[in-house]
Structures are given as C-alpha cells and as structure tokens.
C-alpha cells in the first residue's frame, strides 16, 4: 500500500548535506502494524514524515496505492493525507477552543452531522463519552492523547501514523495508548515510531533505524 523506494531525505546544515533518511526501501502492507525503532536523532521521525507525505523525499520515491507523492501537488497530497491517514503526535495537540468532540471531528474531511455521530461513537469506544464536551484544558494528558487517537481513527483511515505517542506518558499509560491504537484501528495499518522497544510487543514488524538507514527488519 505504501512503498518507499530508495527514498532519501537530505537536510542542509551549514552548507553540509545531512541525510535524515538514506536510501530507504520499505513497504507497509494493509492492516500491518509496523514499529520504527531507533535512538534519538536516528531519523525515525523523518522516515515517518516521508512515508506519510509531510516531507517529500529528496531522492527516490514514496507511493501510496501506486501513486507517487512526487507526481501530485501539495494540495492533492494534503487531501490524500486527510482522507487516508490518521496522525498521533508526541504532543497531544488539540485546538484549545474546540471541545473534545469537535477536535475528533477535525479528522474527517467534511464535518457534518454524520461525522458528529461517528465522533461520539469514537469517543465512547475510547472511554471518553462523558468528556465529549470538555475543552482540552479540562482533560488530563492521557485523555488528551486519547482524543488525538479518536481524531486519527475517525472515518475509515487506511494508515495511522503515530510519532512517539507514548513519549510523554508513564509506562502504563503508554501501553494503554498503544493498546487503544492497535485495537481501534480496525483494518487499517499502523506505523508507530518509538525509542521504547516494549511499546512494540504487538507489532507485526519492527524496523530499526540508525543514522537514517534501516539497520534491521
């Protein structure tokens, strides 16, 4: 479904080329849970951004369902992300002026009454039904992260990308977040970046990154 072929991402730092990702070949299959593991600064988040199209590969290519990201406009790529991908970031980013329910609804391309029902169902399944109308500042860190998961899973998302979603949580809460992601993703794939191997116990595959290169699969 997602395929990276010799994908590289190069930054320029003081006139020197730095490879955030180097010659990556990776395929994400339907329904698969892939863990990307590596120490800080190894390029695992960069790989995730390249796979989801938030960053375009500077060489090589990445394609979703055969459509190469480099062949479509920024607008079309954004549309593709909104329709097919869900995101959970390290920090539980929510819009402070929207309720939990409204924040979840952001994950859908065209919010409407059907979206509201789906978002409510999503919050119910995440155990947040009674907090649907609370604002982010009225929620705990763990609850906020669950709202973010709700947003990422709304609709029929083909892939959920999670960038260190447990980094700011204790181990138990972290495990709960992973469990929620794994069990609520339905038939979608999950690509999760982490530096903690214990969070990837349920992964189908674990890709280890070192210095921007795949070290092991």
């Amino acid at each position: 479904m997602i395929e990276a072929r010799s994908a590289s991402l190069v930054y320029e730092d003081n006139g020197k080329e730095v490879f955030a990702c180097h010659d990556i070949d990776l395929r994400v299959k339907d329904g698969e849970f892939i863990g990307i593991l590596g120490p800080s600064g190894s390029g695992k988040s960069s790989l995730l951004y390249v796979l989801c199209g938030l960053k375009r590969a500077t060489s090589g290519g990445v394609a979703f369902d055969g459509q190469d990201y480099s062949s479509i406009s920024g607008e079309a790529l954004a549309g593709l992300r909104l329709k097919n991908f869900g995101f959970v970031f390290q920090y539980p980013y929510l819009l402070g002026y929207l309720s939990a329910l409204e924040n979840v609804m952001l994950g859908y391309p065209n919010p409407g009454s059907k979206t509201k029902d789906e978002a409510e169902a999503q919050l119910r399944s995440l155990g947040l039904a009674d907090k649907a109308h609370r604002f982010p500042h009225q929620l705990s860190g763990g609850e906020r992260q669950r709202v973010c998961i709700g947003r990422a899973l709304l609709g029929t998302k083909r892939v959920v990308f999670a960038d260190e979603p447990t980094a700011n949580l204790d181990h138990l809460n972290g495990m709960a977040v992973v469990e929620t992601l794994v069990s609520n993703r339905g038939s979608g794939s999950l690509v999760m970046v982490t530096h903690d191997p214990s969070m990837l116990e349920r992964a189908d595959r674990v890709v280890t990154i070192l210095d921007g290169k795949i070290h092991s699969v």
Partner: protein
Amino acid sequence: MKSPLAPYVFLLRNLSKSTPLAGVIVLAVLLISGIVVIMNSIPLSIRTTYSYSRFHTGVTPRGNPAMTPTLKKIILDESPVALGPLMTCRAADCEVKSIVGPWRFVVIALEQNDMRSYAARLGATKLTGRWPRKGEPEAVVSEPILKNMQLKMGSAILKPEDSNNYSPKPVKIVGVLRTDQWLAMMPIEYHRANHFPPIDLLVVMAKSLDEQDKLDHWIYERFKGMQARVFAYFKLEEETTEMFKILYSILNVVIGLLVIVITLMMALLMNIYQSQRVQEFGLLQAIGLSRNTLLRRILAESAIVVFLGWVMGLVSSLAFLSLIRKVLFDPRAFMLDPFDRTAYLYTVPVPIVIFAVSALTIWTKFHKFDPVGVVERRLV
C-alpha cells in the same frame, strides 16, 4: 452541526483576541467619519445659514445710491423669466454664531406686506406672536435664529449697547416664524429712520422658484461691470466650494496618512494574532488540511472581523455623531449631519486596505510555513 472549522466558531470562542482587532477598525472608522462630518459641518452651516438667499437675488447699488431705480428698471424690462415680487429693502448687520466663530448675518428691513410675502416665499407661514408694526423697533425671526443667538420672545435682537448687533433702540422680537430657514426681518421705516447707510437694495424673485437660479445667473451677468453688486445663491455655492477646496485636499492627505498608520498597526496586530496560532495551523496542515483551505478559512475570519469592525464603526459613528449633534450642536442651531454619506465613503478604504494587508501578511506567513516544525515542536 456546525463545522468546528467554521470561521465564526474561532472568532466567537476567542473574543478576547478578535475583539481588539475589530475595535481598532471601529476606532479608525469613528475617527475618520467624525473628522469628515465635523469638517463638512462648516460648509453645511454656510449653506444652511444663508439658505434664504436661494429664494431671491439680492441687488445693491455700488458707489452710487441713486442707481437703485435704474437697476430695478433693467430687471423689470429685460428679465428672461417671469418675475414675482420685486421688493425694496434695507439691511442691518447682526452676528450669528458658528462652530468656527461669529458670522455676519442680516436683519432684512422690509415693508409690512413684503415681510409677509417674503416669509411665505420661504414657506414660513406659521407665526407665533405677531408681525412687527410699521416703523417700530420690532423684529420677527425664525426659530434657528432664536436658538443660535439664544434669544426669546421679547428680547432684543439689536440694541444700542451691542456693537455687533447695533441699533440705536432695542429692536424687540415680537414674532417667531416656525421654519428651518434662518431669517430675521424688521420694518423698513424703522431702518430708514435709524440706520446707516441710506441705500435701498432690491430683492428680486422669479415667479416660479424653479427659475430663480436662471434669474440669478442672468442678473449676475447683466450687471457685470456696472455700479451694482449681486448676491446670488450660486455664487455662495461657488465661493464655499472654492474656500474648502484646499481644506479638503489637506483632509485627504490626513485621512490617507491615518489609513496608512492604522493599516500598519493592523498588519502588526494580525501578525501577532496569527503567530499565536502557529500550533493550530501546523496541526491542521499536518493532519491533511491543505494550505489553500487554511488560507481561505483565515481570510474568511479576517474578512468577518474587518467587515464587522467597519459596520460597527459606522453604527458607532452614527450614534456618536447623533449624540454630539443633540448635546452640542442642536441647542445653538449649529449644523451637523450624522448621516453625511461622504464621511462614510471616506472610511471605505479602511476595511479594503486592512483586508488586503492582512491577506498579504497571512499569505506570506503561510508561504514558508512548515507544519513538521510545529508537530516536532521546533516552531512552538
């Protein structure tokens, strides 16, 4: 259910952020329209105070008081329009107040019947009190004069001890005409016996008011180079326009500068305002909202703020100027038009320029915006 990203959702839930932006526009509109309305009140006052001259052409001999019959004969023989009453009058100086200081005005001295005809010509048919008696030091005035000079029935409009409103005897008000026209009249016999100079003037009226302007122009051209001076309303208009031409040029520059200053201030505010929302824009772009969708949304928010600010500014101006008129202007019969369209037209560039600058600021910001920087917390 409303979309969480509808522009008004953000604006309504962040009133502490959106209100100051609208507030600046309200103040700008209030300031500009206020300046223009007050400036415009001066020519408006001139036109209103001397509006009675629209109803006749005044002709006075110059250098030779004996010219009056000659002038009268020319008018009677050659007038291109059918004439109405042609009156002989005299004039006594008095002083009315305006927002820019005292202005000269005249108490027209007429014969008994002419006073009535003249008032009727101005549509001032309702009289409280009575008409002045022949040869007596008495006057009839209209309501605006009464208010402006702060007089009342029985008080003297001209008196010996007042050098600006002088008459050797106190000329008491015995009648008040209910009209918006500024008008003061006294018996010509009293003037002849007590005032200087002994010059008879002519008040020439076209039979139809519609032809007065034609008559004005004809008399003005006919007596050019003769020992006569013509007082016509179109000349008053021309002189007023000429007088204010330079002032309006200065006003345009001042308002242009104001718009520039306010726009720069708004651009700065918009910049701060949008910078506070970097996290929001980063997140929305990261999850898949396109740059154009976000731009459209933010521009819609700006348009709402700018438009509402402008409309509220217009409403505030109207309310503020109406209050000023009621409290400060009306009691002295000063002129002020809170509904002055020109003043509000002057404010039109404010929302347009502010929106254009905001759009440019937002576009520039988005042009080099990297959502990854936000989700990685490098830009937060």
